Protein backbone atom coordinates (compact mmCIF):
# COMPACT_ATOMS: atom_id res chain seq x y z
CA UNK A 1 0.00 0.00 0.00
CA UNK A 2 1.65 3.32 -1.06
CA UNK A 3 2.21 5.95 1.58
CA UNK A 4 0.77 9.03 -0.06
CA UNK A 5 -2.21 9.65 -2.29
CA UNK A 6 -3.13 12.81 -4.23
CA UNK A 7 -6.71 13.77 -5.04
CA UNK A 8 -7.45 16.71 -7.38
CA UNK A 9 -10.74 18.60 -7.69
CA UNK A 10 -10.73 18.32 -11.52
CA UNK A 11 -7.92 16.75 -13.61
CA UNK A 12 -8.66 19.02 -16.58
CA UNK A 13 -9.50 22.70 -16.18
CA UNK A 14 -9.80 25.75 -18.33
CA UNK A 15 -6.49 27.59 -18.68
CA UNK A 16 -6.23 30.10 -15.84
CA UNK A 17 -8.81 28.39 -13.64
CA UNK A 18 -7.90 27.29 -10.09
CA UNK A 19 -7.32 23.68 -8.93
CA UNK A 20 -7.50 22.31 -5.40
CA UNK A 21 -5.42 19.23 -4.53
CA UNK A 22 -5.01 17.21 -1.34
CA UNK A 23 -2.33 14.71 -0.40
CA UNK A 24 -2.98 12.20 2.36
CA UNK A 25 -0.29 10.13 4.12
CA UNK A 26 -1.75 7.01 5.73
CA UNK A 27 -0.79 6.36 9.36
CA UNK A 28 0.44 2.86 8.70
CA UNK A 29 3.20 4.26 6.52
CA UNK A 30 5.89 2.98 8.86
CA UNK A 31 9.01 4.45 7.28
CA UNK A 32 7.75 8.00 7.58
CA UNK A 33 7.92 10.37 10.52
CA UNK A 34 4.21 11.02 10.93
CA UNK A 35 4.77 14.65 11.89
CA UNK A 36 6.76 15.56 8.77
CA UNK A 37 5.52 18.47 6.70
CA UNK A 38 3.92 17.45 3.40
CA UNK A 39 5.36 19.43 0.46
CA UNK A 40 4.17 20.04 -3.10
CA UNK A 41 6.08 20.48 -6.38
CA UNK A 42 4.54 21.63 -9.68
CA UNK A 43 6.58 20.31 -12.67
CA UNK A 44 10.22 20.99 -11.65
CA UNK A 45 9.34 24.01 -9.55
CA UNK A 46 10.37 24.60 -5.91
CA UNK A 47 9.01 22.33 -3.13
CA UNK A 48 6.39 24.37 -1.32
CA UNK A 49 4.18 23.58 1.69
CA UNK A 50 0.39 23.27 1.21
CA UNK A 51 -2.13 25.92 2.34
CA UNK A 52 -3.19 23.74 5.28
CA UNK A 53 -2.04 20.43 6.86
CA UNK A 54 -4.13 18.59 9.41
CA UNK A 55 -4.35 15.21 11.10
CA UNK A 56 -7.50 13.32 10.16
CA UNK A 57 -9.55 11.29 12.66
CA UNK A 58 -8.01 8.07 11.32
CA UNK A 59 -4.57 9.39 12.10
CA UNK A 60 -3.51 10.16 8.57
CA UNK A 61 -1.96 13.50 7.65
CA UNK A 62 -3.67 15.58 4.93
CA UNK A 63 -2.22 18.62 3.18
CA UNK A 64 -4.36 20.77 0.88
CA UNK A 65 -3.13 23.24 -1.75
CA UNK A 66 -4.92 25.58 -4.16
CA UNK A 67 -3.23 26.48 -7.44
CA UNK A 68 -5.05 29.75 -8.22
CA UNK A 69 -4.35 29.84 -11.98
CA UNK A 70 -3.29 26.73 -13.90
CA UNK A 71 -1.31 28.08 -16.83
CA UNK A 72 0.51 24.90 -17.88
CA UNK A 73 -1.48 23.07 -20.57
CA UNK A 74 0.06 19.90 -19.13
CA UNK A 75 1.85 19.62 -15.79
CA UNK A 76 2.70 17.11 -13.08
CA UNK A 77 1.93 17.92 -9.44
CA UNK A 78 3.98 15.87 -6.94
CA UNK A 79 3.45 15.33 -3.21
CA UNK A 80 6.71 14.90 -1.19
CA UNK A 81 8.00 14.59 2.33
CA UNK A 82 11.46 15.41 3.65
CA UNK A 83 13.50 12.25 4.18
CA UNK A 84 17.07 11.89 5.34
CA UNK A 85 18.62 14.98 3.77
CA UNK A 86 16.52 14.76 0.67
CA UNK A 87 12.85 14.31 -0.23
CA UNK A 88 10.66 11.37 -1.12
CA UNK A 89 7.97 11.71 -3.84
CA UNK A 90 4.91 9.87 -2.52
CA UNK A 91 2.44 10.44 -5.37
CA UNK A 92 2.09 12.43 -8.59
CA UNK A 93 -1.00 13.69 -10.45
CA UNK A 94 -1.30 14.92 -14.01
CA UNK A 95 -2.90 18.32 -14.55
CA UNK A 96 -4.21 19.42 -17.94
CA UNK A 97 -5.56 22.82 -18.92
CA UNK A 98 -6.96 24.21 -22.12
CA UNK A 99 -10.22 25.36 -23.67
CA UNK A 100 -13.44 23.66 -24.77
CA UNK A 101 -13.62 23.41 -28.58
CA UNK A 102 -15.18 26.30 -30.51
CA UNK A 103 -17.71 25.34 -33.21
CA UNK A 104 -15.89 24.16 -36.32
CA UNK A 105 -16.63 26.56 -39.20
CA UNK A 106 -16.53 26.84 -43.01
CA UNK A 107 -17.64 23.24 -43.53
CA UNK A 108 -17.64 22.49 -47.28
CA UNK A 109 -17.81 19.30 -49.30
CA UNK A 110 -16.88 18.14 -52.81
CA UNK A 111 -17.82 14.92 -54.58
CA UNK A 112 -14.84 13.44 -56.47
CA UNK A 113 -15.89 11.26 -59.40
CA UNK A 114 -12.44 9.73 -59.72
CA UNK A 115 -12.38 8.32 -56.20
CA UNK A 116 -16.18 8.20 -55.88
CA UNK A 117 -15.96 9.80 -52.44
CA UNK A 118 -17.41 12.87 -50.80
CA UNK A 119 -14.61 14.86 -49.20
CA UNK A 120 -15.50 17.48 -46.60
CA UNK A 121 -13.20 19.98 -44.92
CA UNK A 122 -13.65 22.51 -42.16
CA UNK A 123 -11.81 24.98 -39.97
CA UNK A 124 -11.25 23.60 -36.47
CA UNK A 125 -11.30 26.95 -34.66
CA UNK A 126 -8.76 28.23 -32.12
CA UNK A 127 -6.21 25.94 -30.42
CA UNK A 128 -7.68 24.16 -27.37
CA UNK A 129 -4.36 22.76 -26.03
CA UNK A 130 -6.25 19.56 -25.22
CA UNK A 131 -6.60 16.36 -27.23
CA UNK A 132 -9.69 17.24 -29.31
CA UNK A 133 -11.50 14.73 -31.54
CA UNK A 134 -13.26 15.93 -34.68
CA UNK A 135 -15.90 13.69 -36.25
CA UNK A 136 -17.72 14.33 -39.52
CA UNK A 137 -21.28 13.19 -38.95
CA UNK A 138 -23.98 12.66 -41.57
CA UNK A 139 -27.33 11.01 -42.17
CA UNK A 140 -29.58 10.58 -45.16
CA UNK A 141 -32.66 12.78 -45.23
CA UNK A 142 -35.56 13.51 -47.56
CA UNK A 143 -35.77 16.48 -49.87
CA UNK A 144 -35.91 19.17 -47.22
CA UNK A 145 -33.39 17.71 -44.75
CA UNK A 146 -35.88 18.17 -41.96
CA UNK A 147 -35.86 14.68 -40.60
CA UNK A 148 -33.40 11.81 -40.34
CA UNK A 149 -34.01 8.71 -42.45
CA UNK A 150 -30.94 6.67 -41.60
CA UNK A 151 -28.59 6.10 -38.74
CA UNK A 152 -25.81 8.65 -38.26
CA UNK A 153 -22.54 7.83 -40.02
CA UNK A 154 -19.32 8.84 -38.27
CA UNK A 155 -16.32 9.70 -40.46
CA UNK A 156 -13.20 9.93 -38.34
CA UNK A 157 -10.43 11.96 -40.01
CA UNK A 158 -6.84 10.80 -40.10
CA UNK A 159 -4.86 12.17 -37.16
CA UNK A 160 -4.85 15.92 -37.00
CA UNK A 161 -6.53 16.31 -40.39
CA UNK A 162 -9.46 18.70 -40.78
CA UNK A 163 -10.87 16.75 -43.67
CA UNK A 164 -12.70 13.46 -43.99
CA UNK A 165 -13.66 11.30 -46.95
CA UNK A 166 -17.01 9.46 -47.03
CA UNK A 167 -16.72 6.37 -49.23
CA UNK A 168 -19.14 5.72 -52.10
CA UNK A 169 -20.80 2.78 -50.34
CA UNK A 170 -21.99 5.10 -47.58
CA UNK A 171 -23.50 7.57 -50.04
CA UNK A 172 -26.91 7.57 -51.66
CA UNK A 173 -26.45 9.79 -54.70
CA UNK A 174 -29.30 12.03 -55.81
CA UNK A 175 -30.66 12.09 -52.23
CA UNK A 176 -30.15 14.88 -49.74
CA UNK A 177 -27.99 14.23 -46.71
CA UNK A 178 -27.29 16.30 -43.59
CA UNK A 179 -23.60 16.80 -42.75
CA UNK A 180 -21.90 18.50 -39.81
CA UNK A 181 -18.72 18.35 -37.75
CA UNK A 182 -18.57 17.60 -34.03
CA UNK A 183 -15.55 18.65 -31.91
CA UNK A 184 -15.09 17.07 -28.50
CA UNK A 185 -12.49 17.30 -25.73
CA UNK A 186 -12.40 16.94 -21.95
CA UNK A 187 -13.90 20.39 -21.45
CA UNK A 188 -16.81 20.19 -23.83
CA UNK A 189 -18.38 19.46 -27.16
CA UNK A 190 -19.36 21.74 -30.04
CA UNK A 191 -20.91 21.31 -33.45
CA UNK A 192 -20.63 23.14 -36.76
CA UNK A 193 -23.74 24.42 -38.53
CA UNK A 194 -25.42 21.62 -40.54
CA UNK A 195 -25.16 21.35 -44.35
CA UNK A 196 -27.99 19.87 -46.42
CA UNK A 197 -26.75 18.64 -49.80
CA UNK A 198 -27.02 15.98 -52.50
CA UNK A 199 -23.47 14.77 -53.28
CA UNK A 200 -24.20 15.05 -57.01
CA UNK A 201 -24.87 18.78 -56.60
CA UNK A 202 -21.29 19.33 -55.35
CA UNK A 203 -19.39 17.29 -57.94
CA UNK A 204 -15.83 18.51 -58.48
CA UNK A 205 -16.03 18.84 -62.28
CA UNK A 206 -12.86 19.09 -64.35
CA UNK A 207 -12.83 21.28 -67.48
CA UNK A 208 -12.80 19.78 -70.99
CA UNK A 209 -9.57 19.63 -72.98
CA UNK A 210 -9.63 22.51 -75.46
CA UNK A 211 -8.05 21.75 -78.83
CA UNK A 212 -7.40 23.60 -82.08
CA UNK A 213 -9.00 22.09 -85.17
CA UNK A 214 -7.12 22.18 -88.50
CA UNK A 215 -9.59 23.18 -91.20
CA UNK A 216 -8.23 22.48 -94.66
CA UNK A 217 -8.64 25.57 -96.87
CA UNK A 218 -10.38 23.62 -99.66
CA UNK A 219 -13.15 22.69 -97.22
CA UNK A 220 -13.86 26.19 -95.90
CA UNK A 221 -12.95 29.41 -97.69
CA UNK A 222 -10.02 31.20 -96.04
CA UNK A 223 -11.12 33.84 -93.45
CA UNK A 224 -8.57 36.02 -91.64
CA UNK A 225 -8.68 36.38 -87.83
CA UNK A 226 -10.49 33.08 -87.20
CA UNK A 227 -9.88 29.96 -85.11
CA UNK A 228 -11.57 26.55 -85.04
CA UNK A 229 -11.80 24.78 -81.69
CA UNK A 230 -13.05 21.46 -80.40
CA UNK A 231 -13.60 20.13 -76.91
CA UNK A 232 -15.01 17.04 -75.22
CA UNK A 233 -16.32 16.80 -71.66
CA UNK A 234 -14.04 15.39 -68.96
CA UNK A 235 -14.46 11.58 -69.22
CA UNK A 236 -15.53 10.71 -65.64
CA UNK A 237 -18.25 13.38 -65.83
CA UNK A 238 -19.43 12.83 -69.39
CA UNK A 239 -22.82 11.49 -68.27
CA UNK A 240 -23.51 14.83 -66.54
CA UNK A 241 -25.33 17.36 -68.71
CA UNK A 242 -23.18 20.50 -68.65
CA UNK A 243 -23.03 24.00 -70.03
CA UNK A 244 -19.69 25.66 -70.77
CA UNK A 245 -18.10 29.08 -71.05
CA UNK A 246 -15.16 30.05 -73.26
CA UNK A 247 -12.95 33.07 -72.61
CA UNK A 248 -10.23 34.45 -74.84
CA UNK A 249 -7.91 37.43 -75.02
CA UNK A 250 -5.02 38.64 -77.22
CA UNK A 251 -1.52 38.10 -75.76
CA UNK A 252 -1.10 41.82 -74.97
CA UNK A 253 -0.36 43.53 -71.67
CA UNK A 254 -3.58 44.38 -69.76
CA UNK A 255 -5.78 42.70 -72.37
CA UNK A 256 -9.28 41.86 -71.11
CA UNK A 257 -11.05 38.57 -71.44
CA UNK A 258 -13.95 38.19 -73.85
CA UNK A 259 -16.55 35.66 -72.67
CA UNK A 260 -18.72 33.33 -74.77
CA UNK A 261 -21.41 31.73 -72.58
CA UNK A 262 -24.02 28.95 -72.85
CA UNK A 263 -21.86 26.65 -74.94
CA UNK A 264 -22.49 22.90 -75.20
CA UNK A 265 -20.16 20.53 -73.30
CA UNK A 266 -18.98 18.88 -76.49
CA UNK A 267 -18.07 20.62 -79.73
CA UNK A 268 -16.25 19.29 -82.80
CA UNK A 269 -15.91 22.54 -84.78
CA UNK A 270 -16.43 25.84 -83.01
CA UNK A 271 -15.53 28.87 -85.13
CA UNK A 272 -14.25 32.02 -83.43
CA UNK A 273 -13.57 35.10 -85.57
CA UNK A 274 -12.75 38.74 -85.19
CA UNK A 275 -9.37 37.95 -83.64
CA UNK A 276 -7.28 40.76 -85.13
CA UNK A 277 -5.72 42.40 -82.09
CA UNK A 278 -2.66 40.19 -81.76
CA UNK A 279 -0.84 37.34 -83.49
CA UNK A 280 -1.49 34.97 -80.59
CA UNK A 281 -4.62 34.53 -78.49
CA UNK A 282 -5.04 32.70 -75.16
CA UNK A 283 -8.21 30.63 -74.75
CA UNK A 284 -9.72 28.79 -71.75
CA UNK A 285 -12.94 26.89 -71.15
CA UNK A 286 -14.84 25.82 -68.05
CA UNK A 287 -18.15 23.98 -67.52
CA UNK A 288 -20.90 23.60 -64.95
CA UNK A 289 -23.60 20.96 -64.47
CA UNK A 290 -26.74 22.36 -66.02
CA UNK A 291 -29.70 22.60 -65.83
CA UNK A 292 -29.31 20.54 -62.63
CA UNK A 293 -27.43 22.37 -59.85
CA UNK A 294 -23.62 22.14 -59.77
CA UNK A 295 -20.29 23.90 -59.28
CA UNK A 296 -18.17 25.53 -61.97
CA UNK A 297 -15.09 23.55 -62.92
CA UNK A 298 -11.78 25.40 -62.87
CA UNK A 299 -10.69 27.06 -66.13
CA UNK A 300 -8.81 24.75 -68.47
CA UNK A 301 -5.08 25.45 -68.89
CA UNK A 302 -4.49 28.34 -71.31
CA UNK A 303 -4.36 27.34 -75.01
CA UNK A 304 -2.25 29.74 -77.11
CA UNK A 305 -3.24 29.82 -80.77
CA UNK A 306 -2.53 31.83 -83.90
CA UNK A 307 -5.71 32.94 -85.68
CA UNK A 308 -5.69 32.57 -89.49
Amino acid at each position, binding site marked *: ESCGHIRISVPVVRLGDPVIASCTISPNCSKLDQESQILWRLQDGPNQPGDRQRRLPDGSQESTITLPHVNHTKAFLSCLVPWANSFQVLDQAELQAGYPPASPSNLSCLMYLTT*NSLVCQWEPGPETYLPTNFTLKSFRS*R*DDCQYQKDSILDCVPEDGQNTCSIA*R*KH*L*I*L*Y*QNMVIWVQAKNMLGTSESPKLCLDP*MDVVKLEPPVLQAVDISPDLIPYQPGCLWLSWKPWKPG*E*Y*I*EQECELRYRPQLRRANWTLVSHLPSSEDQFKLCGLHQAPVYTLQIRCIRS*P*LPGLWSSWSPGLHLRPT
Partner: protein
Amino acid sequence: PLPWPRSFLLKSLEQVRKIQTRNSELLEQLCATYKLCHPEELVLLGHSLGIPQAPLSRCSIQALQLTKCLSQLHSGLFLYQGLLQALTGISPELAPTVDMLQLDVANFATTIWQQMESLGVAPTVQPTQSTLPTFTSAFQRRAGGVLAASHLQSFLETAHCTLNHLV
Protein backbone atom coordinates in the same frame (compact mmCIF):
# COMPACT_ATOMS: atom_id res chain seq x y z
CA PRO B 1 -51.92 10.95 -63.01
CA LEU B 2 -49.64 13.78 -61.95
CA PRO B 3 -46.84 14.60 -64.44
CA TRP B 4 -43.31 13.79 -63.25
CA PRO B 5 -41.44 16.92 -61.96
CA ARG B 6 -38.69 18.18 -64.26
CA SER B 7 -35.91 17.83 -61.65
CA PHE B 8 -36.87 14.16 -61.15
CA LEU B 9 -36.74 13.59 -64.93
CA LEU B 10 -33.37 15.36 -65.29
CA LYS B 11 -31.86 13.48 -62.33
CA SER B 12 -33.20 10.17 -63.61
CA LEU B 13 -31.79 10.82 -67.09
CA GLU B 14 -28.41 11.59 -65.56
CA GLN B 15 -28.56 8.40 -63.48
CA VAL B 16 -29.51 6.35 -66.55
CA ARG B 17 -26.52 7.76 -68.46
CA LYS B 18 -24.25 7.15 -65.44
CA ILE B 19 -25.34 3.52 -65.17
CA GLN B 20 -25.19 2.93 -68.93
CA THR B 21 -21.61 4.23 -69.03
CA ARG B 22 -20.51 1.98 -66.20
CA ASN B 23 -22.52 -1.00 -67.49
CA SER B 24 -20.89 -0.84 -70.91
CA GLU B 25 -17.51 -0.67 -69.14
CA LEU B 26 -18.48 -3.92 -67.38
CA LEU B 27 -19.53 -5.57 -70.64
CA GLU B 28 -16.23 -4.50 -72.23
CA GLN B 29 -14.28 -5.94 -69.29
CA LEU B 30 -16.22 -9.23 -69.45
CA CYS B 31 -15.46 -9.43 -73.18
CA ALA B 32 -11.79 -8.52 -72.83
CA THR B 33 -11.13 -10.81 -69.87
CA TYR B 34 -13.31 -13.81 -70.56
CA LYS B 35 -13.92 -13.53 -74.29
CA LEU B 36 -17.67 -13.52 -73.64
CA CYS B 37 -18.46 -10.81 -76.14
CA HIS B 38 -21.77 -11.96 -77.65
CA PRO B 39 -24.71 -12.18 -75.22
CA GLU B 40 -26.77 -13.72 -78.03
CA GLU B 41 -24.48 -16.79 -77.76
CA LEU B 42 -25.59 -17.27 -74.15
CA VAL B 43 -29.35 -17.27 -74.64
CA LEU B 44 -29.63 -21.05 -74.18
CA LEU B 45 -27.56 -20.95 -71.02
CA GLY B 46 -29.65 -18.03 -69.80
CA HIS B 47 -32.82 -20.12 -70.14
CA SER B 48 -31.34 -23.07 -68.32
CA LEU B 49 -30.02 -20.84 -65.52
CA GLY B 50 -33.29 -18.92 -65.34
CA ILE B 51 -31.86 -15.43 -65.84
CA PRO B 52 -34.95 -13.16 -65.78
CA GLN B 53 -35.48 -10.03 -67.88
CA ALA B 54 -37.33 -7.11 -66.24
CA PRO B 55 -40.39 -5.92 -68.23
CA LEU B 56 -40.87 -2.23 -69.07
CA SER B 57 -44.02 -2.62 -71.12
CA ARG B 58 -45.84 0.21 -69.29
CA CYS B 59 -43.00 2.61 -70.12
CA SER B 60 -43.05 2.19 -73.87
CA ILE B 61 -43.94 5.51 -75.50
CA GLN B 62 -46.92 3.96 -77.25
CA ALA B 63 -48.51 2.47 -74.11
CA LEU B 64 -47.14 4.79 -71.41
CA GLN B 65 -48.84 4.53 -67.99
CA LEU B 66 -46.88 6.78 -65.64
CA THR B 67 -47.63 5.12 -62.30
CA LYS B 68 -47.21 1.54 -63.56
CA CYS B 69 -44.09 2.62 -65.46
CA LEU B 70 -42.57 3.96 -62.23
CA SER B 71 -43.22 0.69 -60.42
CA GLN B 72 -41.83 -1.37 -63.35
CA LEU B 73 -38.74 0.84 -63.33
CA HIS B 74 -38.29 0.29 -59.60
CA SER B 75 -38.84 -3.48 -59.68
CA GLY B 76 -36.55 -3.83 -62.70
CA LEU B 77 -33.74 -1.89 -61.03
CA PHE B 78 -34.27 -3.91 -57.87
CA LEU B 79 -34.04 -7.16 -59.89
CA TYR B 80 -30.84 -6.12 -61.71
CA GLN B 81 -29.24 -5.01 -58.45
CA GLY B 82 -29.78 -8.57 -57.22
CA LEU B 83 -28.61 -10.20 -60.46
CA LEU B 84 -25.40 -8.15 -60.36
CA GLN B 85 -24.85 -9.65 -56.93
CA ALA B 86 -24.07 -12.87 -58.84
CA LEU B 87 -21.07 -11.12 -60.39
CA THR B 88 -19.40 -10.21 -57.14
CA GLY B 89 -16.49 -12.43 -56.34
CA ILE B 90 -15.86 -13.28 -60.00
CA SER B 91 -12.49 -11.59 -60.01
CA PRO B 92 -10.65 -8.78 -58.24
CA GLU B 93 -10.34 -6.87 -61.54
CA LEU B 94 -14.13 -6.78 -62.04
CA ALA B 95 -15.07 -6.11 -58.41
CA PRO B 96 -14.71 -2.28 -58.42
CA THR B 97 -16.86 -1.91 -61.56
CA VAL B 98 -19.52 -4.31 -60.26
CA ASP B 99 -19.61 -2.68 -56.80
CA MET B 100 -20.04 0.81 -58.25
CA LEU B 101 -22.65 -0.42 -60.72
CA GLN B 102 -24.68 -2.02 -57.94
CA LEU B 103 -24.55 1.16 -55.88
CA ASP B 104 -25.58 3.31 -58.86
CA VAL B 105 -28.48 0.97 -59.68
CA ALA B 106 -29.56 0.90 -56.00
CA ASN B 107 -29.41 4.71 -55.79
CA PHE B 108 -31.47 5.07 -58.99
CA ALA B 109 -34.04 2.67 -57.49
CA THR B 110 -34.15 4.94 -54.41
CA THR B 111 -34.75 8.00 -56.62
CA ILE B 112 -37.66 6.20 -58.31
CA TRP B 113 -39.06 4.94 -54.98
CA GLN B 114 -38.92 8.43 -53.48
CA GLN B 115 -40.79 9.81 -56.48
CA MET B 116 -43.44 7.11 -56.06
CA GLU B 117 -43.74 8.14 -52.40
CA SER B 118 -44.05 11.80 -53.37
CA LEU B 119 -46.83 10.90 -55.83
CA GLY B 120 -48.46 8.73 -53.17
CA VAL B 121 -48.25 5.63 -55.34
CA ALA B 122 -45.58 3.74 -53.46
CA PRO B 123 -46.65 0.36 -52.05
CA THR B 124 -46.55 0.28 -48.28
CA VAL B 125 -43.81 -2.38 -48.21
CA GLN B 126 -40.50 -2.28 -50.11
CA PRO B 127 -40.23 -5.20 -52.57
CA THR B 128 -38.21 -8.23 -51.49
CA GLN B 129 -35.64 -9.85 -53.79
CA SER B 130 -37.11 -12.81 -55.68
CA THR B 131 -35.03 -15.98 -55.71
CA LEU B 132 -31.95 -15.40 -57.83
CA PRO B 133 -30.38 -17.98 -60.09
CA THR B 134 -27.66 -20.10 -58.54
CA PHE B 135 -24.42 -20.77 -60.39
CA THR B 136 -22.49 -24.00 -60.13
CA SER B 137 -19.39 -22.90 -62.03
CA ALA B 138 -17.27 -19.83 -62.63
CA PHE B 139 -18.37 -19.92 -66.26
CA GLN B 140 -22.06 -19.88 -65.32
CA ARG B 141 -21.45 -16.93 -63.00
CA ARG B 142 -19.63 -15.03 -65.77
CA ALA B 143 -22.23 -15.89 -68.40
CA GLY B 144 -25.00 -14.93 -65.95
CA GLY B 145 -23.24 -11.63 -65.42
CA VAL B 146 -22.96 -10.95 -69.15
CA LEU B 147 -26.66 -11.68 -69.63
CA ALA B 148 -27.71 -9.57 -66.62
CA ALA B 149 -25.56 -6.64 -67.82
CA SER B 150 -26.83 -6.85 -71.39
CA HIS B 151 -30.47 -7.10 -70.24
CA LEU B 152 -29.83 -4.10 -67.99
CA GLN B 153 -28.43 -2.17 -70.96
CA SER B 154 -31.60 -2.66 -73.04
CA PHE B 155 -33.75 -1.96 -69.94
CA LEU B 156 -31.90 1.38 -69.59
CA GLU B 157 -32.31 2.11 -73.29
CA THR B 158 -36.10 1.93 -72.94
CA ALA B 159 -36.04 3.97 -69.72
CA HIS B 160 -33.88 6.61 -71.45
CA CYS B 161 -36.36 6.92 -74.32
CA THR B 162 -39.31 7.31 -71.99
CA LEU B 163 -37.61 9.87 -69.75
CA ASN B 164 -36.37 11.82 -72.76
CA HIS B 165 -39.87 11.80 -74.17
CA LEU B 166 -41.26 13.22 -70.92
CA VAL B 167 -38.62 15.86 -70.14
